[in-house]
């Protein structure tokens, strides 16, 4: 343990703790833009500077490890002046369009400008203008709003292990981009959107779906796979407009592309909500399922990604009729029993899904083994 003083408060923290973390442990707030607790410290925004006795210039608290007897001041007129200049400099190269920005109200930069009361800017000057937008289907990358905090680059490398983006160019022209400034073509996990402190990275399919204040967060578990990541459905007017995840969950707030972007099925008109019983004769094979390909971005904005009523697709309703759950279960039980009596239990096999939870899979094999009476049971993830 190392003992140090922060703004006169004595605190002991484990060796290797950063000054910033130590300060946060004693509820001292220090502004940051490029710091993320799960990423390696960057030291780029320079907002977290503090004065340490014996050092002749301010140092960034996010990158400086504590040492025994250190005396730190996190606030002083000189520090506040430097922080102010830094925020002014960032804003001097930032589009002044909070009114139409997706992140308004949720943006760290906006909050800093608010707390520092910055309206006029002494450093008005050239701003980075990028005509070309990224044509990928999922992530809006508005690099004019990027403050180069490098969080997206680090999360993509350190958490996702993909390294799809990095900083290109030097000086004022520095820019975060995929190789050769092509359109982003990555895993689309959305980790970068999650960590971006500004409106530079947002999801294309939640554009214009409402401000944060109108959104109700509903915690649930992701239905896609057995990992069971925690989701927070962002619901407005009974429609899921976005999916997020909290940091104190089993998945630490990170999600995969499906969890992040694949929520449209919930309100798809093609979704089956009731059991169907086949009415067409056994050999009529009229039901064709055309495979669906992403053609353009527009399809993504549509809340129902499956095209409906296209020529050549027969709607299920002409082959099936709706039924109640009781009726459907009775029918299944009857058919299973029939097969079992006629051909023995080994004529039946069960294959379950990776999208079920462990408990569901346990119940399933129990059902196949104990109720049906066969060991023919397997699981799609065991390939």
């Amino acid at each position, binding site marked *: 343990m190392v003992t140090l003083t922060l703004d006169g408060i004595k605190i002991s923290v484990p060796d290797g703790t950063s000054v910033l973390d130590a300060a946060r442990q004693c509820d001292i707030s220090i502004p940051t833009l490029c710091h993320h607790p799960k990423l390696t*410290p*960057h*030291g*780029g*925004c*320079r907002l977290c*500077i503090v004065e340490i006795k014996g050092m002749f*210039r*301010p*140092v*960034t608290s996010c*990158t*400086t*490890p504590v040492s025994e007897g250190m005396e730190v001041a996190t606030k002083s007129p*000189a520090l506040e*002046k*430097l922080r102010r*200049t*830094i925020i002014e*400099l*960032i804003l*001097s*190269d930032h589009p002044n369009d909070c009114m139409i920005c997706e992140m308004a109200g949720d943006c760290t930069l906006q909050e800093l400008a608010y707390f520092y009361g910055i309206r006029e800017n*002494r*450093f008005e*000057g*050239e701003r980075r203008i990028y005509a070309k937008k990224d044509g990928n289907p999922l992530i809006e990358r508005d690099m004019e709003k990027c*403050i*180069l905090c*490098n969080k997206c680059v680090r999360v993509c490398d350190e958490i996702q292990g993909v390294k799809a983006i*990095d*900083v290109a*160019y*030097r*000086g*004022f*022209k*520095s820019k975060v981009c995929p190789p050769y400034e092509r359109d982003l073509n990555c895993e689309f996990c959305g980790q970068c959107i999650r960590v971006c402190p500004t409106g530079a990275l947002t999801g294309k399919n939640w554009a214009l779906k409402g401000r944060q204040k109108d959104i109700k967060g509903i915690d649930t578990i992701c239905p896609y796979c057995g990992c069971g990541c925690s989701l927070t459905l962002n619901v407005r007017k009974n429609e899921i407009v976005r999916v997020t995840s909290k940091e104190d969950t089993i998945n630490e707030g990170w999600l995969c592309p499906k969890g992040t972007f694949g929520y449209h099925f919930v309100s798809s008109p093609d979704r089956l909500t009731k059991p169907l019983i086949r009415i067409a004769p056994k050999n009529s094979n009229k039901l064709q399922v055309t495979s669906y390909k992403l053609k353009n971005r527009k399809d993504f904005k549509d809340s129902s990604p499956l095209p409906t009523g296209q020529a050549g697709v027969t709607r299920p309703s002409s082959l099936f009729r709706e039924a109640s759950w009781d009726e459907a279960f009775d029918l299944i039980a009857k058919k299973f029993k029939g097969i079992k009596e006629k051909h023995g239990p080994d004529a039946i096999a069960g294959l379950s899904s990776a999208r079920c939870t462990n408990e569901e899979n346990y119940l399933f094999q129990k059902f196949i083994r104990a109720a049906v009476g066969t060991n023919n049971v397997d699981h799609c993830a065991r390939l």
Partner: protein
Amino acid sequence: MGTGGMAAGGSEVMEAFNREISEAGIEASVEKFCSMHKVGCRGLCAKDVLVDVIVGGKKTTYQYTKPGMVSRIVKEHLIKGEPVADWMVGEDYYSFHDKQTKVVLSDCGNIDPEKIESYFAVGGYEAAKKVLTSLSPEQTIDIIKKSGLRGRGGAGFSTGTKWEICRNTKAAQKYIICNADEGDPGAFMDRSVIEGNPHAVIEGMIIGAYSIGATKGYVYIRAEYPLAVERLRMALAQARGKNWLGKNILRSGLDFDIKIKLGAGAFVCGEETALIASIEGQRGMPRAKPPFPVHSGLWGKPTVINNVETLANIPYIIRKGADWFASFGTEKSKGTKVFALTGKVKNTGLIEVPMGMPLKEIVYDIGGGTNKGRTLKAVQTGGPSGGCIPSELIDINVDFESLAKVGSIVGSGGMVVLDNTDCMVNIAKFFLEFTQAESCGKCVPCRVGTKRLLEILSRITQGKGKEGDIELLEDLSHDIKASSLCGLGQTAPNPVLSTIRYFRNEYEAHIKESRCPAAVCKDLIEYSILADFCKGCGACMRVCSSKAITGEKKKPHSIAADVCVKCGACYDVWVFKIW
């Protein structure tokens, strides 16, 4: 021949000598009785190509040698033994050298950098031999510490202390890196050392490796230095051939080899943590220190990074002793320093002087004063991280402490002489253009702050400066210096601050009177012909490449302002100087 000598036509001159000698029929005797060497940089670039002809132990030096002159030199001097007096160097060549003290450059320009034997002949590798066979690492470090050698890469940290800290850091693997990135505009010291005496750097690295316990070394050198890279490659191969590199060097048990890593020409990659990132294959961006490279450097292992000149000093210190080295220089700045003397000075070139030499002696005695007889205005030292020393302070001693006191730095050794035709606002703008373009973009004050400094300076040079701009420049400069991550941002505003400090009136003239006192800022000057004085000789018309000047013979000419590009060519040839 260094890069400069080659650009001046050194290779052609050498070819001409080969040709002329063989035509004269004395080729057969070349190998036997005489020999011809190409050597590294001789220092006095302004007089390139320089050729030494040694006959019977008597050395004659020719200046401005062109291939066409070779035939006469061969016939009259080589064959008849009568030096060609017309082309010999004059007094100034000797005064340029007399005031210098050469340690690092002592063999540069005298030995053939492409032959290891040439280096052996002047005592090369004897220092390494002494260290490996008779000194312990601790004893070696002690000698370096006692010599007072401080890093020549800019920061001036004690080399011995750096080595000692690294030696005392326990690790299975350590590295030594030679920093040959040299990105400052106007600097060519390190390039010349590697081109002129690459083995001295290698020998310094061997001694360093032994002292700190490293088995692997890197030379990080920019790809824009093809000749230096080529000579270094040759030197490494030759050193390996003689077992000065490789396994069990001199049967001392030391395994050590050196790899070359080419840099892509980013100034910031000279910063040690960015350099390490670049070797590791990352984008060359600095990181916060601590941890310092001596504790955790390349691949997380303890690493010593030293500048080329620092390392090239090492063999000489070991050979001649710490006391000998410490006898040069001042109390706190020991030894000599190589400077690249450029700008408006007569004898541009590479010089080496003891630390603490008065700036006046450097500029006037060695440099020969300003080149066009104009008045000296200032001397810029330390490149983009440095500042301008005004002519009033010309008596200042050039060492780490004295320069820092007046707001400049020794830096890596760039020294640019400015005369009264240099606009100080424009000079500051030039350096800011450089630092802004070379900022790695990592931190806000440097990335955006230097851009804003540059914008303010630009508008001042365009006559659009506002009341309060000088104060804004000063304020922003201080904030950038205080809050930037690495040395680049922390020093980038220095050219602005030092020019404001000593030449505030020039800034004010631009802002308040829309006037550029040095007549440099194009937006603030206009060329016109004084009709009363013009005799219509047409001299100005002939040099104007834009065809902006018109007029009949013997009648007053005039300049079309909309065509004139303000190059000043007409002003320079103007024959009727009236005041």
